[in-house]
């Protein structure tokens, strides 16, 4: 019995009301353990996704993607084929129309009726610097190059052993490398801006937690609102990116057979949409979760002593940011 007062004093927390000893809380709340267990399963999930991407990429044959044919075309008998790259269709409107017609005819030759490109798509491809025609025998490519040049088009020159030619040879790679527009349609500039937004949202989230830990309700609401808004901007930009890739923009033949970049365009396409799509779904879920927390914060539910929802929501949000940091590098930059 003599030890009882000493034990009580030891267990009293600094914030206990005077004369009313309380039992010290356990070092970790059950909610936090549960969240970290959930995050451990998420670690397994995203490691599986990223790891599968690495394995599929490393196992992809060197001829899987080319500048003249759609992905996964068997190139065994097409090694001597040539293409013509139209850099500009000229300034004369009449001649320009002729160039686009010639280019369109060349691009659509051999395509299925539902895969042919429209005049507008062809014009867009040339303006974007992706006016590659696709593969054809050298004699045919030579004739086309002459016709295009006489109509006022500017063609890319290829230098081979000191000999300059307007015919572009077949070039292959095992995976679409960044900044190679003939095979990789992703916009790194747009995604770098999106990465910036997600990092900003992670900072506002941790500042919201810091505010509620110090009992600052006003800043809690402000920073939570900022997190929800910036997170929504991220989702919005990703939606725009998907729309451009899948429906709006025309893509060269090395990206896709039908001019659109969709999950069925190539192995790269399915990997890209699965990885970024699952991450985007996590961000969307996070925005909904944080919106619910924001509503509770507006009702004054959280205090310096009771804010576990803010902390757990924050943990989830930072994890989503962490995954994006890795995805941005692995999928876009490498």
């Amino acid at each position, binding site marked *: 019995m003599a030890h009882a007062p000493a034990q009580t004093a030891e267990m009293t927390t600094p914030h206990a009301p005077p004369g009313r000893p309380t039992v010290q809380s356990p070092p970790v709340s059950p909610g936090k353990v549960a969240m970290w267990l959930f995050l451990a399963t998420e670690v397994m999930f995203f490691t599986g996704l990223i790891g599968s991407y690495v394995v599929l990429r490393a196992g992809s044959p060197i001829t899987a993607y080319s500048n003249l044919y759609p992905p996964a075309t068997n190139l065994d008998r097409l090694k001597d084929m040539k293409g013509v790259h139209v850099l500009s269709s000229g300034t004369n409107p009449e001649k320009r129309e002729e160039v686009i017609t010639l280019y369109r005819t060349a691009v659509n030759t051999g395509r299925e009726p539902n895969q042919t490109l429209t005049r507008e798509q062809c014009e867009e491809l040339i303006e974007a610097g992706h006016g590659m025609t696709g593969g054809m025998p050298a004699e045919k490519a030579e004739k086309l190059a002459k016709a295009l040049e006489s109509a006022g088009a500017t063609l890319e020159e290829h230098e081979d052993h000191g000999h300059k030619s307007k015919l572009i040879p077949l070039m292959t790679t095992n995976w679409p490398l960044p900044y190679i527009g003939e095979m990789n349609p992703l916009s790194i500039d747009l995604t770098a801006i999106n990465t910036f937004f997600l*990092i900003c949202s992670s900072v506002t*989230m941790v500042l919201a937690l810091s505010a509620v830990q*110090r009992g600052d309700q006003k800043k809690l609401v402000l920073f939570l609102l900022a997190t929800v808004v910036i997170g929504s901007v991220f989702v919005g930009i990703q939606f725009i990116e998907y729309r451009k890739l899948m429906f709006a923009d025309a893509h060269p033949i090395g990206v896709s057979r039908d001019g659109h970049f969709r999950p069925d365009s190539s192995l790269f396409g399915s990997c890209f949409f699965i990885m970024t799509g699952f991450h985007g779904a996590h961000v969307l879920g996070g925005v909904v979760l944080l919106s619910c927390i924001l509503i509770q914060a507006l009702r004054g539910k959280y205090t310096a002593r009771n804010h576990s929802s803010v902390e757990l929501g*924050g943990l989830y949000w930072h994890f989503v940011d962490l995954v994006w940091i890795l995805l941005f590098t692995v999928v876009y930059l490498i």
Partner: protein
Amino acid sequence: MTAHNRTLDQQQHVESHAPYMTLFFVLLNYTAMEYVYAKFHTWGSLPLLLIGTAAVLTIATAVAASVYKLHFNRNWVYLTIIPAVFLSITPTPLIAGLLMLAVIKATLVGMWFMHLKFEGNWIYLMLVPAGILAAVLVLGLYPDMVMQTSVEEQASQEEDLVSLPTPFRSLA
């Protein structure tokens, strides 16, 4: 005082006063470095560009820290300048360099924003086994998927050997 013997209130106090804004600038610096490194890695003046980017953003961080009274010391400078100099002066392959930057960034987010720096080691008891299991799954697939080509090549070589007349097999 370590993370193990802090009370919840002490831990909360430490967490709420961590240098988050300074870290924000460091993360932006890393994002800019990644972008510059990936886009201009074939340029001859990459070292100048990379170190210049890191230096300009570090100075901007220091100025912001002094104006807004943020926590800032030389360790934050080392954190950004050292990788920039390393990538500039060593022939690091692009993939390795970019992965290095991404891993440092992800570690900073985990340590500071997710408070791993302030938590006990119990979290690693959950994360490390999960990570190992996931890695084993991926590594298990690697031989089947990636080394398939070399196996096929070997098989085709053996086929060639078999197709040759018996006296010439040893010459093949």
